[in-house]
């Protein structure tokens, strides 16, 4: 785990790690991976992965209109808005 690896993961996670912290972060990350990697010591051939603990599947409901938040309420916590929309920087050049 070198500083370039850390930068690549940070990019995927949409985080920015200051240049000065990269070395220390890499060392800590290495230690964490060594630790969680210990699960690889256990043989798990043929074990079916478990994705959830309850057996509920495909929960559906009637397709009827119900009460939801109004546009005004939905925009209440927006950092920036314009009329009935969330406002963001230009997406397409």
């Amino acid at each position, binding site marked *: 785990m070198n500083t370039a690896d850390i930068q690549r993961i940070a990019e995927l996670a949409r985080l920015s790690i200051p240049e000065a912290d990269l070395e220390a972060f890499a060392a800590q990350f290495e230690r964490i991976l060594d630790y969680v990697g210990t699960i690889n010591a256990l043989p798990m051939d043929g074990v079916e992965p478990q994705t959830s603990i*309850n057996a509920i599947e495909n929960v559906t409901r009637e397709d009827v209109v119900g009460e939801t938040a109004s546009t005004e309420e939905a925009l209440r916590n927006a950092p920036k808005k314009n009329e009935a929309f969330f406002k963001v920087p230009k997406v397409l050049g």
Partner: protein
Amino acid sequence: MITYATDRSDINNGATSCAERTTACLQRIDERASLNAFLHVDADGATAAAAESDERFAAGLARPLEGLVVAVKDNINVAGMPLTCASRMLDGFRPLFDATVVERLRDAGAVIIGKTNMDEFAMGSSNETSAFGAVRNPVDESRVPGGSSGGSAVAVADGMCHVALGSDTGGSIRQPAAFCGTYGLKPTYGRVSRYGLVAFASSLDQIGIFASSLHDTAAVFDVITGHDPMDATSDPGAAGRALDVIASPHASPLRIGVLPRTAIQGCEPAIITAYDEAIERFRTKGAAIIEVALGHEEIWVPTYFILATAEASSNLARFDGVRYGLRAEHTDISDMTTASKTAGFGAEVKRRIMLGTYVLSSGYYDAYYRKAQQARRLISDAYNAVFADVDALFMPTTPTTAFSLGERNADPVTMWLSDYFTVSANIAGIPALSVPFGKDASGLPIGLQLQGALFHDERLMQIASLLES
């Protein structure tokens, strides 16, 4: 600590009132501000609700939890109060609706007094990762209250409310309950709706209860359980009936599973002594004590951290600075997202998002995430096998009593190991209850844990009643 059952009978015979109790709780919160247990206190709302409760008592219309003073962890929606998850990311956020648990408590007559401090986004075991300062242990302010629901544990332990809600993803109710000397219940996954709980790791998260007595734990459990169509993982079964079960006699000879000595050798001597005393108490009440080996103990914590961080990296991607939360202004939308996350999240949250991103990334998915899902199956199967032989599994909640502030911050892995005895219940989805049981030589509380088969929540509370002195 104060208990609702006692207060309710005092209210009924005119010795006190809901208003008096609520005022006393508000005063206690003020007097003990140095503990930093609350992020928001709704004195006006609580006072008004208490007055309404008093009217209902007077009119003979008291509901099941009329006048119960409740504190709510700040990752659970309460309409009309801010919600921060103890993060700068959500500073100023106002939820649009009550979480289902809050709605059910209000409908049952509860008084919601405020929102409690926590580790940022519930990521921590000491309540030191809060962006709004650490919470302190009421027994010794130089020590942590545990985490991540530290504020809720302190609020109950210090008499600031009757009960508190928390969330438990890997021990975040049970570990602080143990460190502060309260009961702490993590129900079976799916029994309590998560609608209105800010998601950390959706397959592990469960809302649960802090209380000063089993009776109060059971009373709240019966109200907040039951199917909720707003949570697709909510179990379709009926609401709990814990109050009935804890009051009824045990159906058959009780079998308590205990861990082999090797599994608890890392615990502090005072915890082992308390554990042995409690086992003896079970024995004198007629229980058969059966040593069981679950196996795979060494992979509990690594499995948990792979699954929890993977799910967190996905869940926390929603904080992109667009619809809510902190936005760092930028001319490019992608840079805006990166700058917002970087400015809004603290160090532990970033560390976990990074680990989760890594274990889900191409080339590492099979070695970590898939392996952890396989390990999850092994751990669940081991529990299922054990619960064919015993009614409950008994173990310490934590290897140590409350540690000092700052003591475990240098190395994340050391901090994560505080959750050694708690994470496996979340991995398997089973119910688990931390029971306060004595103190160490410094007066710090000790918690012991009962774990049961899926949906045996009520039975666990019934078994725990044998430990009441």
